[in-house]
């Protein structure tokens, strides 16, 4: 498994062992944890969630040897604490910068760049939709037949039709959207390379 930051190999192994004694399980947890920390940095309004995630792992790597023997509880919560410190530090750094304002995604594109981004996303979406199974495509289309207020009743009816709860339906549609969104992100990354 490749490392994503400059963590010394012995620290990387120690992090894996801390996450789980089974290396395969630990590797899966490591990947998920990176993903989840990046999401936390996104919530924390950090401009570079991936870079911040690397930084969080680097910091844990420097301390893991000392912390691990005495730390009680799920090690992922230790990562959370480190991530929160990083978010606070980041906020201090950008305190004097002006926030972006006037973002209106529902309005017309206002610049060439914005147009290009929208085109790239649309192209990637079309490619990713080709990989979507018919069942999944039909479900997501049925889910979005109505929007705003009308969608609540419609989704109740749809859940009944599928013989599942609305909760299950929401999760099912979320997974489809998430797999589509991940596919689009990967496609956009490839385009930028």
């Amino acid at each position: 498994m490749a490392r994503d930051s400059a963590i010394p190999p012995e620290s990387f192994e120690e992090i894996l062992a801390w996450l789980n004694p089974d290396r395969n399980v630990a590797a899966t947890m490591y990947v998920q944890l990176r993903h989840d920390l990046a999401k936390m940095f996104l919530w924390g309004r950090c401009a570079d969630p991936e870079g911040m995630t690397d930084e969080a792992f680097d910091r844990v790597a420097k301390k893991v040897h000392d912390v691990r023997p005495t730390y009680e509880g799920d090690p992922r919560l230790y990562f959370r604490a480190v991530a929160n410190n990083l978010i606070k530090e980041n906020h201090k750094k950008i305190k004097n910068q002006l926030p972006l304002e006037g973002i209106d995604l529902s309005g017309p594109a206002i610049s060439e760049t914005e147009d290009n981004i929208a085109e790239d996303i649309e192209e990637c979406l079309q490619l990713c939709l080709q990989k979507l199974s018919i069942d999944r495509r039909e479900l997501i289309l049925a889910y979005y037949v109505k929007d705003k207020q009308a969608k609540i009743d419609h989704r109740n009816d749809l859940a009944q039709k599928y013989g599942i709860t609305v909760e299950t339906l929401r999760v099912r549609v979320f997974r489809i959207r998430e797999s589509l969104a991940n596919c689009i992100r990967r496609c956009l990354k490839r385009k930028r390379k």
Partner: protein
Amino acid sequence: MKEEILTDAVLREFLLGNVNDEEQAQIEGLFLTDSEARERVLVIEQELMEDYLEDSLTAEDRERFLSRYGQTDAQLQQLRITKAIKDWALRENASQTTPASPSLWRRLRASLLLKPAFFAPIAAAAIIAVVVGGIWFNGRMKRAALLRELAQLNSSASLRDVPAQMALLELRPITVRSLEQATEFKKSADVHIVELRLPWIQKESYPSYQAEVRPLSGGDSLIVPNLQAENDGLLIIRMRLFTNELNRGQYQIRLSGIDSGGVVGTTEEYAFIVES
């Protein structure tokens, strides 16, 4: 405790940055350590984004939302992708459900009925419609029969038999194969069935799997449900296809895990080329 804090309302407030430090720590802790909680938070986040895009948030929540989700390139990309998916779905639905105006139809029917000269063309059109409809219906019936035969061919009982006129094809997931050429299958007159062996390298295993076999040149996909994985050190899903249903060209297989509730889980992709 977990259920109390993971309500839609609390999670929305959390995502809008409107919870106290203790609640934030609890939710973030669950997000990192509990996969069910993680998914729940992400479902609410998606719905919050949709509400923003539909302009359904209150002015106060909209402001909070933008301060949380409209600040960085990564957040804007997430919003743009959500918007693109939603717009596509609404567009597709609109194009599929645009009805013909009933009043126009009634006017047309009334005027045609008054003119006997139109009876013959209408009768001819009706005959063509019946013939085309018959062909279409026949095609649908044939396809339904084929899918039933495929399901039967892949039942546990049938998979125990090893027919003489069968070829084996070992495929590898596309992610593993990377830039290698897709595996080739050469059709021959004496081979009627091909058994594809699909290794499942995903972390999660499922009680059953469903495969969609799609010709990249176009045409209908074949769906094979209720496939089972066999543990041979590595999980392998065996799927048999009739060779006479395979035409020359490349095929893509999307193999999806189906959990006990019928929910589609992770998917793996494979490809192979048919040569005649």
